[in-house]
């Protein structure tokens, strides 16, 4: 039926050749701007952020920002990738890089959590709460269940992921049924997770660590050996890199596959781009809101499991309350433009920044330690600011093109 008669090609006069060249050139230009905007603006955003950060360094310490950045770079351990680094320097670099990647793992996952919701048009600001719920569930499953190694790890991961999914799912359900805005509900759920976890492991809390002498320690039990993730690079006693790194890489692949190769992802993206068209197309919008939030929370819950089973092994009140991993995930997703590859690189950037500026790594003669951590926050804040201003960056970009065009005015079509 569909391929009935061939279309009556508008016969005789084929439209002038200018026609066929004219239209694709617009499409091609748009596609170019899209691609350029896709890779160039995040890069420029990061460069701008570092540039302004450098000015801050210069003004506050009077030191050459390049020296500071060099020191931060060495602190990240990324110099391990350079083949000419050898000897003791290489050993230190390896240790540093393990720590950087250890931070990158949960950042990839919380970044994916924010990114997935974004693709459905939702702003999941509750990654932190979902991360906490995931971490708490992983600790409980890791400390109170006894089984063999592999099933124990799998169980703890699955429980944490489902817990994160359920936590975000509450917000998704509220959005889908009564239209409550996810920004509000996820923020409120963050605080519920924050205080509940603080109470559970606090002094006198129901899940506080047991045993003599621990009465005044506001922390959880330590997970059993069978629930710990194996370390594949470095020394387990020096907090080497655990296999959660591959879980995070796998999550990036899963993220891409869900979005681009499944009907679920198609629906999520359709709703994210244009809910009206999706509804008209017969796509259940409310259901997609719920599912997108739940999957998003699953990623964040998984992040919590990776940290608990990979290197923290127990939770205490301070670490619960001080954790920023979920919030940094927002910057990761923004800078990574919600794409799998982008999230990987921006998570690596933020992981490196966090580790490179940590007080243990930085030589105080180069940079005052109390400013070091703030530099990370400054750059993080600038990234969020500049991402909001990417229209401006695209504008500057097009201005550059215009200037170039005027340089040779003869090329007008």
């Amino acid at each position: 039926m569909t391929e009935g008669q061939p279309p009556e090609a508008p016969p005789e006069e084929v439209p002038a050749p200018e026609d066929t060249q004219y239209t694709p050139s617009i499409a091609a230009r748009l596609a170019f701007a899209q691609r350029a905007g896709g890779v160039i603006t995040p890069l420029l955003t990061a460069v701008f952020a570092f540039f302004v950060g450098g000015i801050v360094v210069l003004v506050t310490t009077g030191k050459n920002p390049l020296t500071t950045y060099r020191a931060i770079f060495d602190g990240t351990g990324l110099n391990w990738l350079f083949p000419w680094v050898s000897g003791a320097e290489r050993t230190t670099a390896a240790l540093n890089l393990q720590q950087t990647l250890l931070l990158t793992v949960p950042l990839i996952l919380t970044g994916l959590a924010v990114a997935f919701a974004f693709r459905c048009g939702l702003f999941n600001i509750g990654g932190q709460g979902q991360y906490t719920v995931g971490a708490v569930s992983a600790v409980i499953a890791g400390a109170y269940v006894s089984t063999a190694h592999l099933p124990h790890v799998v169980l703890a991961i699955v429980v944490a992921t489902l817990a994160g999914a359920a936590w975000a799912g509450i917000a998704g359900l509220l959005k889908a049924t009564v239209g409550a805005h996810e920004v509000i509900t996820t923020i409120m759920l963050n605080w519920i997770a924050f205080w509940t976890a603080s109470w559970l492991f606090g002094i006198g809390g129901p899940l506080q660590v047991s045993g003599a002498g621990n009465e005044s320690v506001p922390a959880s039990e330590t997970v059993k050996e069978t629930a710990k993730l194996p370390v594949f690079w470095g020394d387990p006693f020096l907090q080497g890199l655990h296999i959660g790194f591959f879980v995070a890489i796998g999550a990036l692949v899963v993220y891409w596959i869900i979005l681009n190769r499944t009907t679920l992802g198609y629906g999520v993206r359709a709703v994210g781009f244009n809910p009206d068209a999706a509804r008209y197309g017969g796509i259940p919008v409310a259901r997609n809101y719920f599912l997108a939030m739940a999957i998003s929370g699953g990623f964040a819950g998984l992040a919590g499991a990776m940290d608990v089973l990979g290197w923290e092994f127990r939770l205490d009140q301070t670490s619960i309350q001080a954790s920023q991993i979920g919030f940094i995930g927002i910057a990761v997703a923004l800078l990574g433009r919600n794409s799998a590859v982008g999230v990987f690189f921006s998570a690596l950037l933020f992981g490196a920044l966090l580790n490179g500026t940590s007080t243990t790594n930085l030589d105080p003669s180069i940079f005052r330690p109390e400013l070091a951590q703030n530099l990370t926050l400054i750059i993080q804040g600038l990234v969020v600011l500049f991402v909001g201003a990417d229209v401006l960056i695209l504008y500057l970009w097009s201005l550059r093109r215009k200037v170039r065009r005027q340089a040779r005015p003869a090329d007008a079509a």
Partner: protein
Amino acid sequence: MADEPILELRSITKRFPGIVANDGIDFDLRRGEAHALLGENGAGKSTLMNVVFGLYQPDEGEIRVKGEPAAMKSPRDAINHGIGMVHQHFMLVPVMTIAENIALANAPTHAGVLLDMDAAEKRVAELSRTFHFALDPRARIENITVGQQQRVEILKALDRNADILILDEPTAVLTPQEARELFAILETLKREGISIIFISHKLNEVLEIADRISVLRRGKLIETVPREGATEAGLARMMVGREVLLRVEKAPPEPGETLLEIDGLNVRDDRGLPAVRDVSLTVRAGEIVGIAGVDGNGQTELIDALSGLRRSESGRIVLAGRDITNRDARYVLDAGYGHVPEDRQRRGLVLDFSLAENIALHDYAEPPDSRFGWLFPGRLIARARRLLQEFDVRGGGPRTRAAALSGGNQQKVVLAREIGRDPRVLLAAQPTRGLDVGAIEFVHRRLVEERDEGRAILLVSLELEEILSLADRILVIYEGRIVGEFGPDVSEEELGIAMTGGGRETEAA
């Protein structure tokens, strides 16, 4: 005819990245004439007028007003040179009176400080009388008709002593009657020595109102011709660059079984007010039923209820033998429903999706597009490639983003998707809104072809001409009710009267 041009454009060129929107255009406007600027969408009409009004700066060329070179750096310069522009979207404050709106632009004051409302009202009344506008200075904008609001916009320009008036597609928002009144007003303005530039892509009204007609195509001025001797076919050829079939040629309908039956349907609008009242209609296989009406008389709510996007209060809708009353969109689509939506950018397409993804919008979750939740992009692309070719979509392939296409090609994509699903009933809502002559011809021809294939087609349109040239039966909707049924040879006047509620008594009888 001998007098010098009041406005003269000399080889105006305006470039945007990748496009030359105006390419060396010469144009002149004589005192007291109406000069129409005719062209398809994207031909450069609006760009040219925005250059004249100071909204864009030309890259090359010169503007002369009354023989003097004039630099239009901003709309203020243009206004000072006596140019007024009435945009498609009015810039009026709904809660204020006519006089207050006029005073917003150009306020008479006591001693330069206090607003002199009496003077403003007097001036409005005076202008209104001179040009036969029939406007009450104290009426609020929200309480007057769209046609009257347009007159307020014209008045605003005249109040600032404009003697050159630019009207950007002024009839797009008007009913036929209102358009007629507008033309009468334009005649009066011409007699008073006002010169008018009239932007349009409608051939009939250009021939009716303009003294001279300039045709633009792809940024170039093709020709300026006097009205005498110009024909619709000739102008269309100039606009499109090839012969265009203005009238749809179609055989008499051969209606078959009833495929769509609406019985006693009542639907409320978003504010909870009755929008569709007791509507009953049938559409049979092989016929096109047109619903004519002024915008906002319940068409949108009727379409939504039919499409499973809005619940109805009472009544029944049966589509190809299945009761689809208050079923969801998915169910309705599966029952054999195709729908070309009113607003293709908001509903019809996901602009950020590729064409292949857009074409899969209804069926992506079913084989062969997907199986067990796994999507097969290769199959999406293969089907899209076939349909894009069949529907002659230009400007991109299956992987092109929908936003990159022109309006006409976007509409072809929507048609390709809806017709490609082989629906029994096809609802076409405003299928040619904003399209140019070439694309309109394509859409109309395709709809007639689909009718002849045996589909039942319900056409909802605000364009009377479209209804008249396509529909086999015409229903008129007014305030949510079907107030009349006509054959295809009804006159435009008759329809126009029914559309504004005039024909109600006769129909009821």
